């Protein structure tokens, strides 16, 4: 039943949209933001973690559409990961409801450096229609986290989201590679046996 249909897809034109173009000025601005130590570390692959900070779930629908066959995020080396420990990019949607502050900050803190923060949707950019509510953090995600890229829209279309994420990738690739790290001197067996000399030497107490 299923096999003939699967076989047919082998001979069909792919359903996937062509890749959208990235804007050189956005890429250049992102390169500037790259920390010198972070340059080139992430390479041409980014792992993405999403946090919905009190969004209406409109942005989530469009972000989920990125993983589908039409937009096929993974062909660019971008993928969603379940754990913040594995993530390079934090996608934040929603106006940052106060009830989500702690979860948002802890997710960001759990991500290893270097990391990007992307505010997705009008709410995350500046509060959107929820500006003025007591229950949201005034001013969007930027008040809580250092935001590297804003993707406005209510919600932004998958194509717009893809443009933004590809700009991040481009920035990673065009930035100069990092200076090679200093090679640490490996301790020998003898040095392990010797007492440590670099630490503070304990003084003899009175008596």
């Amino acid at each position, binding site marked *: *039943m*299923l096999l003939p*249909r*699967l076989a047919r897809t082998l001979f069909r034109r792919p*359903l996937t949209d062509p890749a959208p173009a990235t804007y050189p000025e956005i890429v250049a601005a992102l390169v500037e933001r790259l920390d010198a130590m972070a340059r080139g570390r992430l390479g041409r692959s980014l792992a993405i973690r*999403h*946090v*919905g*900070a*009190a*969004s*209406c*779930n*409109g*942005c*989530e*629908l*469009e*972000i*989920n*559409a990125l*993983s*589908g*066959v*039409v937009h096929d995020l993974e062909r660019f080396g971008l993928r*969603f990961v*379940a*754990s*913040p420990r594995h993530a390079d990019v934090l996608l934040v949607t*929603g*106006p940052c*409801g*106060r*009830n*989500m*502050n*702690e*979860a948002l900050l802890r*997710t960001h803190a759990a991500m290893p450096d270097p990391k990007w923060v992307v505010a997705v949707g009008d709410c995350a950019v500046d509060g959107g*229609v*929820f500006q*003025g*509510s*007591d*229950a*949201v953090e005034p001013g969007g995600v930027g008040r809580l986290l250092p935001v590297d890229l804003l993707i406005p829209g*209510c*919600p932004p*279309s998958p194509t717009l989201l893809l443009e933004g994420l590809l700009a991040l990738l481009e920035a990673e690739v065009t930035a100069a590679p990092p200076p090679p790290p200093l090679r640490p001197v490996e301790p020998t067996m003898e040095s392990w046996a010797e007492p440590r000399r670099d630490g503070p030497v304990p003084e003899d107490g009175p008596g």
Partner: protein
Amino acid sequence: MNGPATRLIQSGTRRSPIRWRMDEAGWTALPAALRQEPELEFLGLWGEAERVHAAFRHAGGGPPLLATADAAGGRYAALSPARPAAGLFERMAADLWGLRAEGAADSRPWLDHGFWPRHAPLGRNPKPPLGELPQPAFLPAGGEGVHQIPLGPVHGGVTEPGHFRFHVRGETILRLEARLGYAHKGILGLMRGKSPKLAARLAARISGDSTVAHAWAFAAAAEAATGVAPPPRAILLRGVMAELERIANHLNDAGFLCDAAGFAWPHARCGALREVVLRAADSAFGHRLMMDRVVPGGVSIDIAPSGPDAILAALAAVVAELPPLRRAIDGHAGLQDRLAGSGALAPALAAGFAAGGFVGRASGRDFDARRDLPYAPYDRLGFTVPLRQAGDVAARLQVRLDEMAESLAMVAALLARLEPGETLLPLPARPGEGLGLVEGFRGEVMCWMALDEQGLIRAVFPRDPSWLHWPLLEAAVQGGAMADFPLCERSFNASCSGVDL
């Protein structure tokens, strides 16, 4: 056929065609009367400063019935002992308006997690913040070898924030409790004092996947309050948008449900089809999700000249793909093994909670607002309402696939009836109150609104169907396997944002 509770409510002062104001003694007697009239379904409860409202409807038919009472000193008699579905609403009313439900089954905080600058922000006298709350207490489960699994508010996938606390023994879920409120953004407070036209942008963002349904229910309430009848062309276009929204969401969830069971092919196909539908919506109405298109007085944008053809082409693609998709889903033994029997919701529970939409209809509750509370344009459309009795994940999926087929035919019928004409009328600034009830993809979305002398919103409450689905999800997974929880959750797909407000 009126039972004791209906008679009690209607013995109050009639404040509108569907709302009665009861005195304190009348409201206090309401829980006992409700117990004697189980067929009076509970739809929702909300507050105002020092006032409480509740909505009901007869299971046999007829329009909703609203009861209001003064909550003197911020207290009123709880309805949750007679209608368990009222429990979450009572906790919400305590946090937002400072109204205490006396005798309530549960009085733990719900929306207020202790981070707001004021407690009871919508009450007459907002109170100082609760401050940092202790770790939330969850309902316990006893026995040997029981352990807890906390899940959320940040989940593994791209989803809304919500916390789930499981008590499990081995692989078996003994108890699930959802703790929500993470998506609270103060929508009711923002709507208050605004004109319906301005507040419609907020109504469209109560739950993004139901933006058309919420905007329509909100617009219907505003139109009922001001006595405006939207133009016929606008009504037909609303119907087109609502059905496109239903088709897109059913496709999306059917795909994700199969994916949660490890069957990726339907997910890919449904995702591609959903994209086709959303692109047609974009070319017809200028927005993929059709946000801000339904507004009080009509629709904000007429359909593009090429819109009908784009929509019909998209529908043809879905119609062509639906039968092979169903054959693949129905004929896949491994998938059916996961779906059949999982997350079964007993018909008695679905009826007791007045579960709307596919959740109710998969458990034998034969209710669809489009048919049973007919409103234009559905009153002149022929369609069948699919029904199943099993109440499991498979039944909910079948109901949704059946509904999609009906919606596909409905959109074509609505487009064929389009006549040139106006699409938007201005709303007069005048006092009034109204109720809107619209069948969204999850179930019936209800919106009640009261306007003051200047025609600005004095009080409003949009009720998402998820209010009644969340407690039912907790019941449906009980005794099931932990590994089946993603399936059950997807098959309910209750909205966090819709109930967190």
